[in-house]
């Protein structure tokens, strides 16, 4: 058994980058402030010192160009990792991501493929307002050709980032600004492990209801589950999707088979979101498992406000999760 140690999500990501760059010289990093400063959120700190400016490159504020260049480098055999300071800014390069990167393998009949990672943080909770807080997982998951990963724990963050770098396809790797300083058990540096892309995990077993979530919402969901158990005796099973696309419905359905109830929670917009997708698939694929209507909880259709109480109002976090679960369990009474 590997001796685990406690470390932060931030440190786990930094280690993943370092270890992959040591392992494979085709891996390199581009982005704004990543080299000399070490990344606005310090994810790339000290990498310049070890790998030099040829492999850790500060770019100008030109997202279209450097994401497009990542495509070019990946097309000819490199493994670029680009950092986007706030995932909101990927929209500036939407053509490169959706029209180019996501379609390249297909449009070329598989002649060219793109082992690249676009990573950065998203999400609310720190009063950054409308253009620095949104979650784009549902948007990215909507398109074919992009793997979308959104780990919540340091262990998963490290294992999935390594897997993303080793994957031969484009991966949009979504971190969350509320997660960077959270801690968890991770094997020591240089104990090589990966977490497979496309595999969900039950993070808390329970009997009454399956709550599927990912990224920072996982922590809110786990906290909600504890309180629901304590105060109401409701036993929620929390499934961490970890990868949004491709979606591991097998693990979700196995859980729903045990609980008969399904709630999907995420911080991207509920409207046309991942939760809507999970619920729709449940009705298409496993309607017989549902004892009560499946539901979703996401952001309401408003831009994200700065003011603390306003932002807290709309984030689909613990308070909303508990309220939704209670409503759903009330339905149990009604249906019984």
């Amino acid at each position, binding site marked *: 058994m590997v001796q685990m140690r406690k470390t932060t999500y931030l440190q786990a990501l930094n280690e993943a980058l370092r270890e992959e760059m040591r392992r494979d010289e085709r891996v390199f990093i581009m982005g704004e402030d990543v080299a000399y400063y070490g990344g606005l959120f310090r994810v790339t700190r000290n990498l310049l010192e070890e790998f030099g400016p040829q492999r850790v490159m500060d770019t100008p504020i030109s997202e279209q160009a450097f994401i497009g260049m990542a495509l*070019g480098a990946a097309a000819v055999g490199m493994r670029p990792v680009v950092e986007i300071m706030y995932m909101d800014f990927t929209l500036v390069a939407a053509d490169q991501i959706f029209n180019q990167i996501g379609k390249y393998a297909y449009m070329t009949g598989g002649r060219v493929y793109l082992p690249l990672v676009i990573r950065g943080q998203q999400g609310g909770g720190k009063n950054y307002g409308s253009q620095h807080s949104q979650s784009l997982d549902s948007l990215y998951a909507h398109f074919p050709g992009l793997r979308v990963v959104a780990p919540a724990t340091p262990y998963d963050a490290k294992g999935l980032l390594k897997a993303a770098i080793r994957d031969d396809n484009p991966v949009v790797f979504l971190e969350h600004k509320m997660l960077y300083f959270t801690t968890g058990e991770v094997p020591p540096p240089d104990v090589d492990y990966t977490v497979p892309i496309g595999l969900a995990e039950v993070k808390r077993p329970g009997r009454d209801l399956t709550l599927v979530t990912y990224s920072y919402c996982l922590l809110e969901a786990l906290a909600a589950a504890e309180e629901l158990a304590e105060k109401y005796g409701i036993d929620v099973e929390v499934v961490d999707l970890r990868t949004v696309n491709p979606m591991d419905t097998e693990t979700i359905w196995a859980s729903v088979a045990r609980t008969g109830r399904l709630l999907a929670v995420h911080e991207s917009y509920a409207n046309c979101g991942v939760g809507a997708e999970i619920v729709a698939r449940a009705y298409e694929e496993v309607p017989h498992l549902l004892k009560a209507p499946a539901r979703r909880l996401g952001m309401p259709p408003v831009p994200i406000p700065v003011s603390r109480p306003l932002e807290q109002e709309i984030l689909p976090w613990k308070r909303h999760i508990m309220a939704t679960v209670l409503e759903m369990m009330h339905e149990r009474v009604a249906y019984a």
Partner: protein
Amino acid sequence: MSVVKTITSSQERKRGWSISLAPDLLPVEVPPPFDVPPLSVEVLQKMYHVMLLIRRVEEYLLDAASEGRIGGAMHTAIGMEANAVGAAFATRPDDYVTCTYRGHHHAIARGLDPGQVIAEVLGKASGCARGKGGSMHMVDPEHGLMGTNGVVAAQVPHAAGMALAARMRGEDRIALTFFGDGAIYQGVMHETFNIAAKWKLPVIFYMENNKYSEMTPIWRTSAIEDLYTFPKVYGIESIRINGNDVEIVHAAVSWAAERARSGEGPTFIEAITYRLAGHMAGDLETYRTPEEREHQRQADPLLVLRQKLLDRNVTEEALARIEEAVAQDLARAVEFAETSPWPDIAEAYTDVFHL
């Protein structure tokens, strides 16, 4: 009385820019910083073969489109062949190339089998992208063609990334990207100029200035006439050439490639050229007069090269032999493409990811 004045086409021409190829309107002189040594007649004859083959393939494709056998947007480079052939002969097979939706000429010039080009445009299984890409998505990694692109200027940073990769690996490969005059006003173009210049990337930016962006002459939308001056702001060596003379194109790209390989960084080439066919199959060409087109036909790169060969004592018979060989190449390519099967239906679902 209407306050909107009608602009006649001759007035338009007066208001438009003078850069042209046809004899009375020569390209604005930019003294080339490189020599244009005459190429051997052997090489020129090979170039003539490839240029004529491109022309014949695209004429066939226009016919097929008018018969309704090709859907979508199909763009030909009729009249622009010298740019592709001169550049391909001046670079190595392991150099990287990206270009626009107008890319059949580059694909064939790089060495992609014309049968595969036609098959791809027809959507056949034997196409270079197995029929999934079509006319706008030629690809041939074995000859360095990493993709042609449907979005104006999107391919430009891709080439810069390939140049970066080559440099990181310590290879002396270069990347070459082709785009139109209209692409100069895409932001990503300027983003890429800056990075390529700052990082001294071994990349050549090659503008095929055919004077129109779709149905609109570039002078109608551009604030400046001398497009090749833009990259100079970023410190990029930038020149304007006659893109209809394959020897000049060859010399310019050879020079730029040498600069790139020896670490001197990017070069921008504005090649003045002219598309003799419509922007795409089915273009009504209401935006220009037949006279204008016929006038420009005097500078048809195939005529220019043919005359060059005659002037250098290549006989009519020798040229006729090339023309016959091209006819056979075309017949073979058409036969190959037309008799190729459609892709298996299961192919619709593959290649989204590399497995």
